[in-house]
């Protein structure tokens, strides 16, 4: 386990009390807290380096551009991107996937073609494909899950028989914590000629990610789920795919020359970064990456697996609690979704909040998954490097209190 007490000292917000209790922040799959080094990097950027990037001829603007491009190189190395120019900064995972659907998808998917997603995809890796398929008259196929919350490989195989153009799935499920066998799924999809889009929102913060080893084609990530600022994120892609794709947004920065009635476009990645970018976000994200690298993602993953295993063990001891997702330890990240008898997840979240415990209650932007689990909502605790076993105990203790408050009697 990591030295949580030492790490927590790096995060000013975690020292706060909530409703008179020490803050127990267990909603890290939604967003993470920020260490002082990230806050400092953002403030320092504005204090010493701020100017618009890629435009100014003066030294300050050159330093701003260098900071922005250094952040890109840092992120590229962090996920072993094909090249720094294969990293397009976006507002986050959602925008990155919309970019793929709106540019690559619109250019390559035609009427009658197929796009494959899975029943565990977040709405952000589903709705953009729905929009694309509706526009093109293409077919969207959703791959089913096994009873224990894994992608059903036989159904995945059947979905590939129709030779879809695009196959999209998450590396880690935000609602179940399942870690999917990305390299294996990618190999199967490539064998039928599909392009693979991986939603990396929940994997990049927690696992050592190597997009070249995964061999996918597009990989989307969010900065704010990995200690970075909100509104930072990226699409990581094979440069040759980006080269061939039409622009997504039009505007400044993405052009090369502009005439009255048409334009030529800038080279990648700038072709996809219209307008003034979120330089503060990129700089803050780079600081977050430095922080994560210092600890090591293998150690972070190990720490979170231990917390998840402890939480599952504690929670399943409470009569009436059902935990969703794979039972094993190896293919599960630090996300624990559960229900407790007939106590609605929102009621659980309200009760836990009075003890300073922040969990998520709801459909987790995965309504097709909730339907398959036959629930409208679940409660979800999700861990990060600054959470400790004492917080797992606090969660279990508060749940017992919720049961008492509701007069929960096991059926």
């Amino acid at each position, binding site marked *: 386990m990591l030295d949580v007490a030492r790490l927590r000292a790096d995060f000013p917000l975690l020292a706060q009390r909530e*409703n008179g209790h020490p803050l127990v922040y267990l909603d890290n799959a939604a967003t993470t807290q920020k260490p002082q080094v990230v806050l400092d990097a953002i403030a320092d950027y504005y204090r010493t380096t701020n100017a618009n990037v890629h435009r100014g001829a003066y030294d300050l603007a050159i330093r701003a551009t260098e900071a922005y491009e250094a952040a890109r190189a840092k992120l590229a190395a962090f996920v072993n991107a094909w090249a720094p120019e294969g990293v397009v900064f976006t507002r986050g995972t959602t925008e990155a996937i919309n970019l793929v659907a709106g540019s690559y998808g619109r250019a390559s998917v035609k009427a009658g073609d197929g796009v494959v997603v899975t029943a565990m995809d977040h709405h952000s890796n589903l709705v953009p494909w729905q929009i694309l398929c509706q526009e093109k008259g293409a077919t969207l196929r959703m791959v089913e899950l096994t009873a224990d919350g894994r992608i059903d490989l036989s159904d995945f195989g059947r979905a590939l028989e129709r030779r879809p153009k695009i196959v999209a799935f998450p590396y880690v499920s935000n609602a179940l914590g399942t870690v999917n066998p990305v390299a294996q799924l990618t190999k199967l999809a490539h064998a039928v000629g599909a392009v693979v889009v991986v939603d990396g929102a929940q994997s990049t913060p927690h696992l050592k990610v190597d997009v070249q080893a995964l061999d996918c084609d597009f990989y989307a990530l969010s900065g704010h789920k990995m200690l970075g600022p909100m509104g930072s994120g990226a699409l990581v892609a094979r440069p040759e795919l980006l080269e061939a794709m039409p622009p997504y947004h039009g505007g400044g920065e993405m052009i090369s020359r502009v005439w009255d009635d048409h334009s030529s476009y800038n080279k990648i990645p700038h072709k996809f970064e219209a307008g003034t970018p979120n330089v503060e976000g990129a700089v803050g994200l780079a600081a977050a990456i430095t922080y994560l690298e210092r600890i090591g993602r293998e150690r972070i993953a190990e720490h979170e697996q231990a917390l998840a295993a402890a939480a599952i063990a504690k929670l399943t001891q409470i009569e009436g609690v059902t935990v969703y997702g794979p039972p094993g330890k190896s293919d599960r990240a630090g996300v624990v979704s559960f229900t407790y008898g*007939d*106590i*609605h*997840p*929102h*009621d659980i979240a*309200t*009760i836990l909040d*009075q*003890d300073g415990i922040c969990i998520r*209650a*709801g*459909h987790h932007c995965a*309504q097709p998954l*909730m339907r398959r689990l036959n629930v*409208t*909502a679940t409660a979800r605790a999700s861990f990060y490097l600054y959470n400790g076993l004492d917080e797992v*105990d*606090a969660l*279990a*203790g*508060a749940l*017992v*209190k919720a049961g*008492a*408050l*509701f*007069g929960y009697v096991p059926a």
Partner: protein
Amino acid sequence: MDTSPPDPQLSALYQELILDHYRRPRNKGTLEQATHAVSLNNPLCGDEIDLQLRVDGDVIKEARFIGRGCSISQAAASMMTQLVKDKSIPQALALADRMGAMMQGDEGAARDKTLGELRALAGVSKFPVRIKCALLPWNALTDAVQPPRG
């Protein structure tokens, strides 16, 4: 482990009466001769209600609902369907206003006997994110009898 007694605000929120309506909802089901129907959901948390009314003249003769959601939204729906029975539409809309005022922390509304059992929900006003749960059935009622224009 924390063995302190539950927070008094929580005990006020989850009163026996509310849990009773949650677990044994009154008027749950569908009406065969509904004159008004509306479906509402809260996209943020997934609470759902399908409300049906049988209105004769301007009097609500019967109200039934089907819904899925938290204890607050489901208890509020159950209590509301009892309260608006045999009320005129203007009376029902006035009750919706009183309910809204109670959720905003209006103590006069919280003592208003015309709200009947719904006064048990006064504690929701201390939990701002849950107010929308308590008002979901009332918003459905308002939409049903007074369809939004536009």
